[in-house]
């Protein structure tokens, strides 16, 4: 356990030491420290994941925090694995990506300092068992990520986005503060295990406290009503950081929810339905908005919300299993959720790294201006293709495995003979199918528009072969993407002990069934690959001595060659957006000067975040209106100030007089 803590400390030490080094060596030094941290953390984590036991240590602090346990149990180990890997890859990626910002060494040192602080605080979040220390480390994580999002603070919208992010995190932390305060007031101690009595179904306020915890962690994870910061913060951050935030940081929210679930044992049935419904809405809302985006990183941020929805669905199914104590559904649900957390980390990071490379080469994130990057960035486009296939759940790659587990979990829950469960299961099934299909649409649009076809605008893109430090992390993550896809047993063996935590009595027969199921799936996938290879060979054989001419695409004989003929991103998404118009309102701005024959005209359409318009803006307007009503207090006239005091005094005396 001590080595894991040292690993966590190494990250922030690396950040600190980067302050005092010349600009060129800052990133190298940080990568060195990150690598060293990996060496300390990974053995302990892997050992806990495989063996299923837990490592524990005791830290003693001054009075208000008191004694805090630092425990690495399988749940924490799984998230620690993702966090340490993600941080290491972010460090490697930043080395190449930050060359764009070379020149301001002060900015760079603050970047690496806060990156180190964020990584180590994320690691501590999953290890700490004391409520107050957890809140401190949780807030440190939000603070460090705030400064990282605010890195390019020269731009006005980046500053606005980072402030919005900080306030959203504070509101989330407020919920957590309330929840932890309430439960530690009820139990008297700050240790997580002591909250067992309060949060489990026997506790008096267990439902309210769970809702408070869910709201607090949901803000960080990005469940629908609380997600509005995500599409603002991720695009603003430099890509290395937005990959880390999207792949890893929002998972700490999921970790929090799972930790509380671990304490509750069998949750209340209404909570199970609530989590399932919210996750379905989150998924559909996230992917619908992702389709409407034209900014590459905003699109990926919304797709993170969609994947959080899928993870939430897994958790919901697991909770249903717990409620109706059916160990198969529970294990399938949580297996799906945890596996999807790992998978999402893998393919979302690759997608963000790809977007970063595209941005570093073309200096634009608007997909309407990109196109035909396939021939200028061949390696990147291959890896982004793999990850887009994975994220929409195509069978050979890792996205399919976790969605498959959740599907089976939902299908198995049809056997529970209660109408409510059946309806919820059907909503889950059709919701997940809709999300999968829309994900297909979204990522064909992303890959098709950005990488295929002809370039839509003159975009200088020198050959990207020389930026190895950008490609290395991507390659490093594509390998497990395929491996887990073909041989799911690899990832499942890692996750078994964590899922075991959630099963009341760790029943092994359930596990055998899942293992046999997964082996048959992998064999049939192998057959699918065989079929593909067979038909490619047939094609090559058929064309071996035929003439393969290269000519221009069929264009009804229109001679003029132009790239504007191509379908753009927004036109590709237009049919589906018509169907989901209420969910994703489009703000259309048409500018035409009111002249008989207008010379200049412009059309602009932005996708609006409907939950921002429906929940956040009215609330803010109301609050401002209420607060502005009292601005007369500070009017500058001294008599008025003295009058306040006198009136207050008279009111007090009258109250005492009546109270006598």
């Amino acid at each position: 356990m001590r080595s894991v803590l040292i690993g966590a400390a190494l990250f922030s030490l690396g950040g600190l030491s980067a302050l005092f080094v010349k600009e060129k060596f800052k990133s190298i030094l940080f990568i060195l420290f990150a690598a060293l941290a990996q060496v300390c953390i990974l053995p302990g984590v892997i050992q806990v994941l495989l063996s299923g036991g837990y490592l524990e240590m005791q830290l003693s602090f001054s009075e208000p925090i008191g004694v805090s346990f630092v425990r690495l149990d399988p749940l924490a180990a799984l998230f620690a694995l993702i966090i340490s890997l993600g941080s290491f890859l972010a460090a490697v990626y930043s080395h190449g990506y930050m060359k764009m910002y070379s020149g301001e060494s002060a900015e760079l040192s603050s970047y690496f300092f806060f990156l180190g602080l964020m990584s180590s605080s994320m690691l501590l979040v999953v290890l700490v068992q004391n409520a107050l220390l957890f809140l401190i480390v949780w807030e440190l994580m939000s603070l460090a990520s705030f400064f990282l999002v605010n890195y390019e603070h020269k731009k006005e919208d980046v500053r606005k986005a980072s402030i919005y992010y900080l306030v959203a995190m504070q509101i989330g932390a407020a919920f957590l503060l309330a929840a932890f305060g309430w439960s530690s007031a009820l139990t008297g101690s700050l240790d997580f295990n002591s909250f067992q009595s309060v949060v489990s179904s026997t506790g008096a306020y267990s439902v309210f406290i769970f809702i408070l915890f869910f709201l607090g962690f949901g803000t960080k994870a990005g469940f629908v009503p609380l997600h509005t910061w995500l599409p603002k913060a991720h695009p603003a951050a430099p890509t290395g950081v937005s990959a880390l935030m999207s792949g890893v940081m929002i998972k700490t929210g999921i970790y929090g929810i799972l930790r509380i679930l671990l304490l509750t044992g069998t949750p209340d049935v209404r909570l199970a339905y609530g989590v399932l419904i919210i996750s379905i809405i989150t998924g559909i809302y996230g992917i619908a908005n992702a389709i409407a985006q034209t900014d590459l990183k905003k699109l990926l941020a919304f797709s993170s919300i969609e994947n959080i929805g899928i993870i939430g669905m897994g958790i919901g199914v697991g909770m249903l299993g717990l409620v109706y104590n059916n160990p198969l559904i529970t294990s399938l649900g949580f297996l799906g959720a945890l596996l999807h957390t790992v998978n999402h980390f893998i393919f979302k990071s690759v997608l963000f790294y790809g977007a970063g490379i595209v941005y570093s080469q073309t200096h634009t994130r608007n997909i309407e201006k990109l196109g035909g990057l396939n021939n200028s960035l061949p390696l990147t486009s291959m890896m982004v293709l793999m990850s887009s296939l994975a994220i929409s759940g195509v069978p050979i790659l890792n996205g399919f495995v976790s969605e498959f587990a959740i599907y089976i979990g939902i299908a198995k829950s049809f056997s529970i003979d209660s109408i409510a469960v059946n309806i919820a299961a059907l909503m889950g099934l059709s919701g997940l199918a809709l999300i999968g299909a829309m994900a297909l649409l979204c990522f064909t649009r992303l890959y098709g528009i950005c990488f295929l076809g002809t370039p839509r605008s003159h975009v200088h893109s020198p050959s990207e072969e020389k930026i190895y430090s950008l490609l290395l992390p991507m390659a490093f993550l594509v390998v497990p993407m395929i491996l887990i896809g073909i041989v799911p047993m690899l990832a499942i063996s890692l996750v078994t002990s964590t899922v075991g935590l959630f099963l009341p009595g760790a029943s092994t027969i359930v596990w055998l069934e899942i293992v046999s199921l997964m082996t048959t799936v992998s064999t049939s996938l192998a057959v699918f690959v065989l079929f593909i290879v067979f038909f490619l060979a047939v094609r090559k054989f058929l064309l071996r001595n035929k003439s393969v001419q290269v000519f221009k695409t069929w264009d009804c004989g229109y001679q003029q060659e132009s790239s504007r003929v191509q379908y753009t991103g927004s036109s590709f998404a237009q049919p589906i957006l018509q169907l989901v118009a209420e969910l994703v309102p489009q703000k259309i701005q048409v500018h035409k000067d009111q002249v008989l024959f207008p010379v200049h005209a412009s059309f602009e359409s932005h996708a609006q975040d409907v939950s921002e318009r429906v929940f956040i803006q009215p609330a803010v307007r109301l609050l401002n209106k209420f607060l502005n009503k009292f601005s007369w207090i500070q009017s500058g006239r001294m008599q008025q100030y003295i009058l306040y005091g006198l009136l207050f005094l008279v009111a007090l005396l009258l109250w005492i007089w009546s109270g006598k």
Partner: protein
Amino acid sequence: MTDILIILLGTSMLYVFAVSRIEAYVKTLAFQGFLLFLLVIIDIQEIDWLNIAFLSLETLVIKTMVIPYFLFTVIRKNEIAREVEPYITQFYSLIIASAIFIFGFVAAFWAATTNAGIKPLYFGVSIMLIVSSLFLIVNRKTIITHILCYMMLENGIFLLSLSVANELPLLVNLGVLLDLFVGVYLFVIFFNKIQEMYDGSRIDELTDLKDE
């Protein structure tokens, strides 16, 4: 005998409401100081002559002679003559003053009934003095009037302490007097500075520090 003096004190307060020339305010202030001195001398209870000597010194010398003379010189130097039209017009503020005066007597009768051992008339008139001086501060507009009303508030409080008649230790009385004197001295310094900077001692011009 003491009741007459206290009633005189009350009426002096009414006089301040009626009149609007500033010299008149200073004269009433000196008059009130003298009345307080008489009250202290007549109303001797304890033997502790040191305290009594100090109190009489304080009221006679400071409140009757030093501060009023000090204020006179300041008013003459800045040639301030009349009070500006207050927020609530003269006529209505006089009605309010009389209402406060009657309230003072009601408080006196009420104090007589409770056996809290306080001299009723002292208590009633001191409340009247305090409340009416506070009302004047809130109502009037020139700064010098504010300083004078503050002094009347202090006289009211002094009268209230007499009504309780349990003696504060000498050190504390010295402290209270010191604070009073330094307070007035500071007010006058600020008054002169405001005169120079704002050329006119209207209080309602002092409103540029605000978050409207």
